[in-house]
Each structure stands twice: as structure tokens, then as C-alpha cells.
């Protein structure tokens, strides 16, 4: 089918019209294809008018599109979105390891070691620390570095940090890192934070990492940081400076670097809520990711409405009350569902 070259000499325009390689050449020509098809023409000069006709037919030929109405697209999504809440357990914590190709290799090596005799060569134990919804926890690592975990987050690291090897941890959810500088005769020792989207390499610094919803956002408070893009084959290194925030929304999107007010992004580490023109949708997402709360706003309150507030030493209940007061809403809470409704003023 694809490997052997068909007998083009007897092709009609219709054959070319439905020949994959020919279509690709017409729609996306490249030098290799140009050379190939010029060669075919040289071999079979009689094909010249045939191919010429097919070449003109290919781009205009379409199958009439049946379009999904915008209203339907939205209606279906709204229902899927609800089902998502019921079906997907509130953000299952990632089992560490599946997203790092190095772990796959490590697993293979492990299997080998087991057959050799695992009692001789037991792999180093890994520690995993998790937080529940709405809880924070500070983890002290063997090298003295500290990681504060936000609610519904997990940090994995090796129990034994032998000297000379890079320090490595794996994060899902959100964490604030205070990394100590470490040195050995060979030089400074790196500290690498692995997230699904990128690796963050530092020598000693403070930064916040948020890996929710397929987005990876790194906010640097002080020092210098290197971001390595792991999905694309080549390792692209970005340098971040204090006050900058690097964010990637999806795995294919480019890395977006902005200068920000860092206190917005690490407010949670001081038990504060700081919002500055933050869309309500983002606040609802944050409340779901970190506190496990499902928020519903009234239909006539647009989710892109922006909210600004600075609440110190407050709990999530106060935040809900402030939002309700700001937009004149009533709050109804059942379990982890919070429904905001328009406040009915007495007649």
C-alpha cells in the first residue's frame, strides 16, 4: 500500500485525486515531493496533462460540512462538565512516575534487579507527601530545603540524598519552594523539580509552582531559575528572573513569560487571598483545585467578571462571604457544593 510505488503510468486524474502522496504534494509541497513527482513525469511524459488536471482538482474538492450549532456545542459541554465532577474523583493525585520517561527506564532496570536478587540491591525508598483539600503542609527535605504544599497536592522525593547527585523532587498540585544552596568539590548541586510540563532547575532560590489543569506556572520570588521543556525533544532552556512568572497553558502552547506582582501568586503561603482583576472563573477553579469546592454562579453573572480583593489571615468561608456581598448574592452550601444565587430583595 504505502511502501511500494504504484504503477502511475495508467493513472487517470481521479486516481491521482485520491492518491495520498499526490494530494499531500499538492496541498503541502516540499522539495522531496517535488523531486519525486518530477521524476514520475520524466518517466511517463504522457501523464503531464493528467497530473495537471488532478493538481487543479485537488484543492477545490470538498465534502459539504454539517456544522454543529454553537448553542448545541455549549449545551453538550455544560452537561459533560457536570458529569466530569461526578465521574472524575476530585482531582486524583498523580501517581508519581508515569510521566517521567526516566522512571520508565528505572522500572525496566528495577525489573532486572529483581531477577538478579532484589535483596542485594534494593532501590532507594521514595517518600511521598500529600495534602487534603484546604490543608497546607511544610515538608523539610533531607538537604534542608523546604517545600510548602498547598491543598490537594503531592510531593515525591527520594529518601536518601547521596552527595554529589542532583537533588530531585516531583510535584503535582501547588507548592512553594525554599531551596538551600549546596556545594561539593565538583561545584554547586542542582535542585530539580519535575512537573508534567517542565523541569525547573535551581541552585538556591525561592519560587512557587502551580501545576493545576494541565497548566504549569512558575513564579520566581528571588534568585535565578532554569526551565526545561521536556515534551519537545530538544531541551529548551529559559531563564527566569525575580518577579517573573512563566506559564504554559497546554502542552503545545509556547511558554509565556510575564512580569507580575509575585505576592498575588504566593499569597496562599501567608494564608492570604489576593486577587487583582481575577476572573471569577479562575477563582472558582482555584476553590475546586485547592479546597474541593464546586462553585456555581448565577447565570446572569458572567464568569469572566473580574474580582479584586486582599484578605489577610482569612479562611475560605470569609472569601465566599466577600464574593457574595460584592455581587449581592445569597449562598447555599450543601457538602462541597456552593451555589451563589441572585439575592431577592424584599418588594
Amino acid at each position: 500500500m504505502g511502501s511500494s510505488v504504484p504503477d502511475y503510468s495508467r493513472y487517470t486524474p481521479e486516481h491521482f485525486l485520491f492518491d495520498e502522496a499526490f494530494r499531500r504534494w499538492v496541498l503541502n509541497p516540499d522539495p522531496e515531493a517535488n523531486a519525486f513527482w518530477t521524476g514520475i513525469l520524466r518517466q511517463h511524459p504522457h501523464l503531464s496533462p493528467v497530473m495537471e488536471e488532478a493538481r487543479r482538482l485537488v484543492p477545490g474538492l470538498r465534502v459539504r460540512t454539517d456544522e454543529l450549532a454553537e448553542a448545541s456545542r455549549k449545551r453538550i459541554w455544560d452537561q459533560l462538565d457536570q458529569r466530569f465532577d461526578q465521574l472524575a474523583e476530585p482531582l486524583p493525585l498523580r501517581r508519581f512516575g508515569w510521566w517521567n520517561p526516566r522512571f520508565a527506564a528505572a522500572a525496566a532496570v528495577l525489573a532486572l534487579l529483581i531477577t538478579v536478587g532484589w535483596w542485594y540491591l534494593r532501590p532507594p525508598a521514595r517518600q511521598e507527601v500529600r495534602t487534603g483539600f484546604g490543608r497546607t503542609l511544610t515538608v523539610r527535605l533531607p538537604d534542608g530545603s523546604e517545600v510548602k504544599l498547598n491543598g490537594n497536592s503531592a510531593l515525591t522525593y527520594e529518601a536518601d540524598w547521596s552527595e554529589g547527585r542532583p537533588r530531585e523532587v516531583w510535584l503535582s498540585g501547588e507548592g512553594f519552594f525554599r531551596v538551600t544552596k549546596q556545594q561539593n568539590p565538583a561545584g554547586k548541586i542542582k535542585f530539580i523539580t519535575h512537573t508534567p510540563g517542565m523541569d525547573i532547575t535551581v541552585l538556591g532560590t525561592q519560587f512557587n509552582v502551580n501545576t493545576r489543569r494541565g497548566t504549569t506556572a512558575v513564579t520566581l520570588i528571588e534568585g535565578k531559575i532554569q526551565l526545561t521543556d521536556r515534551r519537545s525533544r530538544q531541551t529548551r532552556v529559559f531563564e527566569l528572573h525575580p518577579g517573573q512568572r512563566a506559564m504554559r497553558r497546554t502542552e503545545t502552547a509556547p511558554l509565556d513569560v510575564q512580569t507580575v506582582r509575585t505576592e498575588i501568586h504566593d499569597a496562599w503561603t501567608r494564608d492570604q487571598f489576593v486577587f487583582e482583576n481575577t476572573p471569577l472563573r479562575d477563582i472558582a477553579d482555584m476553590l475546586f483545585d485547592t479546597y474541593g469546592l464546586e462553585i456555581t454562579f448565577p447565570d446572569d453573572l458572567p464568569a469572566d467578571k473580574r474580582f479584586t480583593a486582599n484578605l489577610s489571615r482569612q479562611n475560605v468561608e470569609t472569601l465566599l462571604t466577600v464574593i457574595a456581598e460584592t455581587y449581592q448574592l445569597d449562598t447555599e452550601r450543601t457538602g462541597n457544593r456552593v451555589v451563589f444565587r441572585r439575592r431577592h430583595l424584599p418588594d
Partner: protein
Amino acid sequence: MWEDFRQGDRGAFSTMYEKYAGVLYNYGYKIAQDRQLTEDCIQDVFVTLLEYRQRLAPTDSIKFYLFKALRREILRKLRQQNRFASEDEIDFRATFVYEDSWLDGQLSRERVGELLQALNQLPARQKEAIFLKYFDGLSYAEVAGVMGIEPSSAYKIIYKALDKLQKLLTFQLVLLLLSGRIG
């Protein structure tokens, strides 16, 4: 995206829906020819995907999986409503069109008209295979998987379509010549 979705990422699920809802409808409607039914099936397919996401292989092609599941779901619902009994009755209402803006002096309107007429006369299975292969970019193996046939059959269906096309076009040419003689 696939892997993030399998791990329960809502953003990845939403991206996947945005990317495929439209192409799925464009395919499914051609079989079902029923707006409501096609939309219901699209919703069901994504719900099933949610339910079984952890059991899906990481290497599965999302698009292939969705097309296959949608076709199966549409046929199941049509069968429930007694609107179709056997594989042979599956319709595929694809209308081939040519965008006029591509017409130039070298290509006559008559020639394009004849080609479209011939294409639009092809049997449903041939149209469906051509549609999936050339307009949705699936491989022969994927076309076969979606349509529930052997890969070699998918290949044969497309080659039969080309044969049929030749015959139809020759027939039209003869008609044209005859009418020319008579007129």
C-alpha cells in the same frame, strides 16, 4: 492532552471536546441524518470516555477512538428506534462540492460538474471510506477500524470506488458525445 485527560485533568478534557466535537458532528450527522440523535451520541461518547479513561491505552489515537465509538453509538441508537436493520442499510449522506474560487480557465465547469455527479453517485460505504481517508485524514487501518471491517477491505472499497468513478465518467462522456451528435 490524552495523558493529562487520563489522569483526570479537566482542562485536557475541555481541549479535547473543543477539538473534536465539530469533526465528530460532521461525520456522525452524515450517518444519522438526525441532529438531535447525533448530538446525543456525541455527548454519550464523551461520557463513556470519562468513565473508562483509566482503562484506555496511553497510545490510543483519540480521534480514531472517538470516531469509532461515535459510529457504533449512532448505529446502536438507530437500531433501537428500528431505523436500520443491517450494515447494508447504513447511509452516508456526503455531498461532494467544488469551491468555485478554485475554478480557473484550465478547468471547465462541465468537467468539475461531471466529476461531482459521479462522486455523489457512489455507494454509501465507498463515500464513507473516501470521506474518512481523504477528508478526515485517517489511515487505512483506522478507516477499517471505524467501519468495522478488515484493513484490506478498506483498501478494496476505495479502489472499487475509483473503478466505479471511471465507469460513471466514461458513461457520462458517452452520453455527452451522443447528445452532441444528436444535437
